[in-house]
């Protein structure tokens, strides 16, 4: 655990660090203790407040919420990715009257809060809240996907496109068969990371009255009584974080797996004298 930022700790520095760690842990523990005591004074830890979780109905409602969250995210992701590809191709098109309007649209979509797009679709098109949530997520994330893929294409060596054109492919064929596959593979970690953002943003559905996990939990607390709000909120937050952490881990795993291989799928040959990338 040595770092370039500080010397390898000697006995004295280790002692100081240990004392620092102990003080730090005590401080954090103190904060947690105060929080727990405050909660206990409100009677949060009384067993009957948590007893609701022994009822199957409660878990059914939570499962419905998770299902609504995941289905909105899945539908949005499945639509947003091809749309993002299309927008990306239009954004880098050789034809100015396709490229320039696409650029303006992308700029517009990226500068807009997702929740505003959801509300817009909900009110202006008078759709169901599910469609509003999916439409908001699709509009925003397809713009982001387009930008990520564009960054991937721009990061490719110039020779890829030149070679494609040299063997007689049209510009569009070269984009589609040579550059896109490499760009997508190269940007896979960013694309999966954006999926986490998409999944997180489904919680905005709460604001447009879509019955996702947070809304399901609030409805439940309204029905059961305010004293159950904290327990059900706690469980909902834990579920959300657990799902997102799992997808984030997936992104990190893909990144590690991808970095072992070069873009062409050939084995990466370590160069003598360079430190392994962390």
């Amino acid at each position: 655990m040595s770092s370039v930022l500080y010397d390898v700790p000697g006995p004295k520095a280790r002692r100081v660090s240990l004392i620092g760690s102990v003080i730090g842990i005590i401080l954090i523990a103190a904060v947690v203790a105060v929080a727990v005591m405050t909660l206990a004074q409100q009677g949060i830890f009384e067993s009957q407040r948590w007893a609701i979780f022994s009822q199957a109905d409660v878990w059914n409602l939570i499962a419905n919420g998770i299902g609504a969250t995941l289905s909105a995210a899945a539908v949005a992701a499945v639509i947003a990715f091809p749309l993002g590809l299309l927008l990306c191709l239009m954004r880098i098109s050789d034809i100015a009257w396709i490229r320039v309007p696409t650029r303006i649209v992308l700029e517009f979509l990226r500068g807009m809060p997702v929740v505003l797009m959801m509300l817009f679709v909900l009110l202006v098109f008078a759709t169901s809240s599910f469609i509003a949530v999916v439409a908001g997520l699709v509009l925003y994330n397809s713009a982001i996907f387009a930008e990520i893929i564009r960054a991937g294409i721009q990061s490719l060596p110039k020779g890829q496109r030149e070679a494609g054109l040299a063997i007689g492919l049209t510009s569009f064929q070269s984009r589609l068969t040579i550059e896109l596959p490499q760009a997508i593979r190269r940007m896979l970690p960013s694309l999966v990371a954006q999926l986490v953002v998409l999944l997180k943003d489904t919680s905005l559905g709460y604001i447009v009255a879509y019955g996702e996990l947070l809304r399901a939990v609030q409805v439940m607390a309204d029905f059961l009584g305010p004293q159950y709000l904290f327990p059900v909120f706690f469980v909902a937050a834990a579920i959300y974080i657990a799902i997102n952490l799992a997808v984030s881990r997936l992104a990190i795993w893909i990144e590690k797996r991808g970095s072992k291989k070069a873009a062409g799928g050939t084995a990466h040959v370590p160069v003598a004298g360079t430190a392994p990338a962390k």
Partner: protein
Amino acid sequence: MDVIIESLPQYWDGFLRTLFLAVVSGIIALVFGTLLAAARVSPIAALRGFSMAYVEVVRNTPLTIAFFFAAVVLPRLGVTFEQFEIAAIIALSAYTAAFIAEAVRSGVNSVPVGQAEAARSIGMKFGQVLSLIILPQALRTVIPPLINILIALVKNSSVAGAFYVLELFGYGKQLANDHGDAVMWVLVGVAFFYLLITVPLGYLANVVERKVAIAR
């Protein structure tokens, strides 16, 4: 169209409140995020662990959950706010700080190793190495990503509108209720004011990025 002109005072009020939320939360998040990044590379294990856990958990928490906690759950636990702006600022800055910490940490990693080694070899302690040598260079290189995080912060502040704060999105909802026949124009007006903040910031990020790229 007339609705927008008619409700300009509300829009303006909401615009200022959005700016206020973004600026205050942005400053708090920049300070807190930089401290978190410093803790993440510090020699003290407890600080490293805390920073790592905080960033990992908060980055994977939906903002709506953070807002719900600050604006709905906390008051029922006895922590009441005079104004919901304070709840919004707590949620926004706690959320954004995690992203800023990650950006600053990647900046710290991008500073050439020789810089820290040279600083240490002339006898600097960790605090000095970090604050005098590494952070000034790291912060410079991460200005474009930091601006992008601030753009996201401006957009994220719209969630406050759903939690009792009358900023742009909050006014948008209210005006949409009052003018049921012109909902589209009301929301287009809201969108315009958001773009008024985010598009110039985006251009600023591009310009800075190009400048930094040339400097290297």
